[in-house]
């Protein structure tokens, strides 16, 4: 869409976004030139905005943001689920318990480091390329869907969105990156196939040196110097909170089996390390084994089958870093009959369905697939020349069934509310509004 097809409402947004962080006054002439409208339309809008207080006159011929624009700073960052008593009637925490329960703040200084992207500023519409590691599991497909949702929302700014699927092959990914560059992309989004692949890392460094802005999502190269920003979620938090919940659910005593995701994958490693650190703080918790499952249901089932066969007694708790394999473990217990131990791991709708249906105590922290949409938003911020964080973490919410809160781990949302009974088992609930949006046409899918 060209600029002259914008509505006046959208032009107002564009005008407000045109002021810098210091609210430096802008000449009316410059504002109108950026807006690309006739003088009569431009002056009409500016007069109306000044009259309503969105802008104020600073000097002859200059304008800056006015008091009404300042009022936009008052904004809720989240919709608090627990404001609705019907949906989350959580017991208020007593003061003494709260003192005990308050976990340490884990500050990652990278979250508050910012980068000035003004050198990448250019005019829309943009051509953006996404080099995706793979679409092999439900989560990765959900992440891509959330990106398509963001593309649809921002179609006025995105002239072309080119997606390539590297099928977990670093060599193919390298080839596809070159292909995207040849097609003249303004920015490269990447979810890397292999964090240690030297050729990929070197190519990204070369492209960054040549002036191509690069934003990573979910998986980044070990050397992050080529990146403008990295969009992710806290694996450490997922591992730590889920382990803390399991240890407290077992009242500090019991046998735990750990089912991790893909061996060598950094999210699996970080979650596992964080969980092991928590379990080590509980002398009565015994971690009997750690297995890898490739984040698949089938592997989760087979691993649990083998472990049960060897141990001949069920564990007190099963720690899974995701529901992708957690559903396999649950299915094995269901097929075997008898009681099902407490489980951790979210992501898949089926995990919630099974735990709620069979009344299995569970704790879940979904790794947000909505980071796909966030990555595209960040890409647009980069090309818009904004100042933005070097690392962007999508919030990870704690999901618990009613009655499953522990002294330290409180629900951000009840599992009973989070589950989508009307949607399929493979649905990844953390993909955001893309979840119920119409699917994109096949011609825009990954090549």
């Amino acid at each position, binding site marked *: 869409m060209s600029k002259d097809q914008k509505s006046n409402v959208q032009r107002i947004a564009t005008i407000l976004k045109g002021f810098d962080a210091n*609210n430096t006054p802008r000449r009316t002439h410059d504002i109108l030139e950026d807006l690309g409208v006739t003088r009569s339309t431009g002056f009409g809008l500016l007069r109306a905005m000044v009259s309503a207080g969105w802008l104020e006159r600073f000097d002859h011929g200059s304008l800056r943001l006015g008091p009404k624009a300042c009022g936009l700073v008052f904004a809720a960052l*989240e919709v608090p689920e627990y404001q609705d008593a019907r949906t989350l009637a959580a017991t208020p925490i007593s003061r003494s318990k709260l003192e005990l329960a308050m976990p340490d703040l884990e500050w990652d200084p990278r979250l508050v480091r910012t980068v000035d992207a003004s050198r990448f500023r250019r005019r829309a519409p943009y051509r953006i390329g996404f080099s995706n590691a793979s679409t092999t599991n439900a989560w990765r497909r959900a992440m891509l869907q959330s990106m398509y949702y963001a593309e649809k929302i921002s179609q006025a700014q995105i002239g072309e969105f080119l997606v390539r699927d590297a099928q977990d092959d670093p060599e193919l990914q390298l080839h596809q990156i070159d292909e995207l560059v040849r097609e003249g992309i303004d920015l490269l989004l990447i979810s890397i196939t292999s964090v240690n692949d030297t050729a990929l890392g070197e190519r990204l460094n070369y492209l960054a040196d040549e002036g191509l802005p690069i934003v990573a999502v979910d998986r980044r190269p070990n050397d992050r110097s080529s990146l403008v920003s990295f969009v992710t979620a806290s694996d450490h938090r997922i591992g730590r909170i889920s382990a803390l919940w399991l240890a407290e659910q077992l009242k500090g005593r019991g046998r735990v089996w750990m089912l991790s995701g893909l061996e060598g994958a950094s999210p699996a490693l970080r979650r596992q390390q964080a969980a092991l650190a928590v379990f080590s703080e509980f002398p009565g918790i015994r971690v009997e084994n750690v297995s890898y499952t490739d984040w698949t249901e089938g592997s989760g089932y087979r691993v649990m089958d083998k472990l049960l066969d060897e141990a001949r007694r069920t564990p007190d708790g099963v720690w899974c870093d995701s529901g992708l394999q957690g559903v396999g473990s649950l299915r094995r217990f269901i097929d075997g009959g008898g009681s099902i131990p407490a489980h951790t791991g979210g992501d898949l709708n089926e995990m919630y369905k099974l735990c709620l249906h069979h009344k299995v105590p569970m704790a879940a922290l979904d790794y947000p697939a909505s980071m796909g949409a966030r990555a595209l938003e960040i890409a647009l911020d980069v090309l818009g020349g904004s100042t933005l964080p070097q690392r962007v973490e999508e919030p990870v919410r704690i999901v618990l069934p009613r009655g499953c809160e522990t002294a330290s781990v409180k629900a951000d949302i009840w599992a009973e509310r989070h589950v989508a009974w009307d949607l399929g088992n493979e649905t990844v609930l953390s993909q955001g509004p893309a979840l119920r949006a119409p699917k994109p046409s096949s011609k825009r899918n990954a090549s």
Partner: protein
Amino acid sequence: MTHSAYSRAVELFDALIHAPDKAPHATPAGLIQAAGIPSSSGYRHVAALEAEGFLRRNPAGTYLAGNSAIRTGFSGFGLGNVAPLSQPILLRLRQATQHTAFLAIVRDLDLHMGPYSVGRETRGTNLQPFYGFESIPNLSIGRPEETVLRSQNEQVVRRTGTLLAPVSSTRESLVVLGLILQPGWGATDQLIQSLESASQQITEALEGR
């Protein structure tokens, strides 16, 4: 196009941008209805504002103020560099303390409430866009101070207990990070430590540039 058409566009923008403040809306139709604008053009405007980042949707689809809106608000005070720090700091602080965490700007002894994340321990306290101070506070960078704020709604004056830690100052404004306190309770050592730790993060990030 007449002058009133431009004013009407400004009114539409205002109505849509503030509709999420009043009640949660999970559909464009709900937002359009709450804003009181015609549905014929409403969908296009909602989509445009979402594309410009003035509106965003959370994982449940509910509309919230977008990052561009918050950034514009901070920029209006000449403090746009604070905007990218607000979400990570406030969400962590809220998760760690279960108290409502906020950023605010103090100018001419008025407190302009900024972005906030509601904690379950203080969910009963509805935040207002403006506050005054009950007494002149003794605020200095990095030092949390229990401070009572006053807000007036019609003829009713409400007192709100807070713990405030200034994180940055300019010639005209002071940026403060704060926690809402439970009515009748003072600040605990843990709340003070958490706020100190969080405010230090922001101060260091801002000074680092």
